[in-house]
């Protein structure tokens, strides 16, 4: 049995603290996903909590057909969509807190990251989502198709278009 299903099964048997294990396992992933989508740390923190609260309340609806991770990211996507309807466009300000060792490396890497993040933020919604879920969360295309409720073919195309677009905009001297 899948590790997550084991935890959920314990949760359903009365050990309600088992849910904390799921939170600790996925909190980083959900937070970083939301942060890349919204850009603001404060918003990302609040939305991360919303994701887990929705997951907690909806857990009895999780049948275990797909992976728990896929189901969770689907919730995260929906939470993001509800939020983005009511709020200003992506702001890059929250993504600037980066910890590195060497100062020179710090400056170069920071600039490179900012450029890439800006380019990602300019992608169309589905391309951005596909790229982030694939590159940073290593979901399979099949999982991404479930999250986005589209075909695998669409996911593959979106992934290609996303990378190609960034490649075209990325400054030549970075390559």
């Amino acid at each position, binding site marked *: 049995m899948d590790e997550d299903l084991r935890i959920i099964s314990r949760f359903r*048997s*009365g*050990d*309600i*603290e088992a849910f904390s294990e799921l939170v600790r396992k996925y909190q980083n992933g959900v937070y970083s996903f939301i942060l890349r989508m919204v850009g603001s740390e404060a918003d990302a923190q609040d939305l991360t909590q919303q994701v887990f609260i929705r997951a907690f309340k909806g857990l009895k609806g999780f049948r275990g057909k797909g992976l728990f991770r896929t189901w969770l990211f689907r919730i995260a996507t929906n939470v993001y969509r509800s939020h983005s309807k009511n709020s200003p466009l992506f702001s890059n300000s929250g993504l600037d807190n980066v910890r590195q060792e060497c100062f020179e490396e710090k400056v170069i890497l920071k600039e490179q990251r900012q450029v890439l993040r800006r380019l990602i933020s300019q992608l169309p919604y589905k391309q951005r989502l596909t790229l982030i879920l694939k590159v940073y969360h290593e979901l399979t295309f099949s999982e991404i198709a479930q999250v986005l409720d589209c075909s695998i073919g669409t996911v593959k195309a979106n992934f290609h278009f996303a990378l190609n677009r960034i490649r075209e905009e990325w400054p030549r001297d970075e390559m």
Partner: protein
Amino acid sequence: MKKFSILIFVIAFLASGVFAQPKEKDFYKRFEMIRLWLLTDELNLTEAQATKVFPIIKKYNEKKKGLFQQRNQLVNDFREKFKKGKITEEDIGQLLKSWEEIRIKEIRIDKEEFKELSSVLSKEQQARYLLFKMRFPHEIRKILKQMRQRKALKEK
């Protein structure tokens, strides 16, 4: 060959834990949520306080649970002996002594808990927590009474 595959099947079936010991019913953790819930309201905890307070309270509740169970066992044994008319002076002395030891441990745990909480809670919150502890079984009894009343109404 057929006997062998049946054997494998049976071993696999047994190993899957179907005939394993039934799990200890752990409702205690679940019902501790009531305590946290009432406490959150009683102390008017903020979210930031909750992140520090909840783990502390859970930790010491677990320690207390062990002591409660010891105490309950002692009293139940004593009661059983009493019903059978087999209590001796030694039993009475032993109960008092064990009781005292458990009480000392409980108080020590309470003190440790308060020491940790004092860095997170205000003086007023600490005072409320003390009063809450005294009142807590009474709160549970109130809830039980209400539940039983609702049940009785439904059954009419």
